[in-house]
């Protein structure tokens, strides 16, 4: 059977634009943060269990893989937070104009990037 000639999904035929890239990234960062809850649960359960269990999590988080994951989640968290606030404004019916959506999009990129860098640097500084 030959597949029917159906229209393709927008993401396959349109040139990527800021609005569509941020929309997809919101989803992707949400899924990434959901996966991150596994680590959060491990961290809390280890803290409730024993010194050894907690030392194991802290060792993993301090390894290069752990730090890389934390850096990724740091960016995902602040992006999802900032873009989520942008979505809440849309839900209230505000900011739908093309120019405004573009400006708020770049604001989200800049604000979340800056917050993530500052937060991660602060974490590294506290850790010493």
């Amino acid at each position, binding site marked *: 059977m030959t597949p029917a000639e159906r229209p393709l999904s927008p993401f396959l035929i349109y040139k990527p634009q800021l609005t569509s890239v941020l929309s997809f990234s919101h989803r992707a960062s949400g899924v990434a943060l959901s996966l991150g809850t596994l680590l959060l649960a491990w961290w809390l359960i280890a803290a409730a269990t024993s010194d050894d269990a907690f030392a194991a999590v802290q060792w993993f988080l301090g390894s290069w893989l752990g730090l890389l994951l934390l850096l990724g989640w740091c960016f995902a968290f602040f992006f999802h937070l900032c873009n989520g606030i942008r979505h809440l404004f849309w839900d209230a019916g505000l900011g739908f104009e093309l120019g405004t959506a573009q400006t708020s999009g770049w604001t989200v990129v800049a604000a979340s990037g800056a917050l993530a860098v500052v937060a991660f640097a602060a974490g590294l500084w*506290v850790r010493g």
Partner: protein
Amino acid sequence: MAEPRLRSPLGRAIGLGSAKEGVEHWWAQRVSAVALILLGLWFAASLIALAGADRAAVVAWLHHPLAAILAVLMLIAAFYHSALGLQVVIEDYVHSEWRKLSTMVAMRLISMALAVAGTFAVLRIAIGG
């Protein structure tokens, strides 16, 4: 002339369309999102302050009732928001009916299990230590 009505009176009263659900999902996702703005920022700031800390520091942090209460609220809001979001992702990208159902059930069970485990851990530290 009155507009012809194709829906039954009961259908109109319940107000649900072919999706078999109303706006509860949408609202729940927004309400949990608003809660998570504050709870998430507080939790992120707490984690930064605890970077590289030993277990005693985490226990001392959660021994404070306010921290324990906020942590439990954060866990409930985060796992609820995450399950609602993952549900939409599964609905959009998993097409075969049995696979959609099994992914959805697994996602909900894992979310619930992690939420309970995390909450229990916080309470154990807060009350027992």
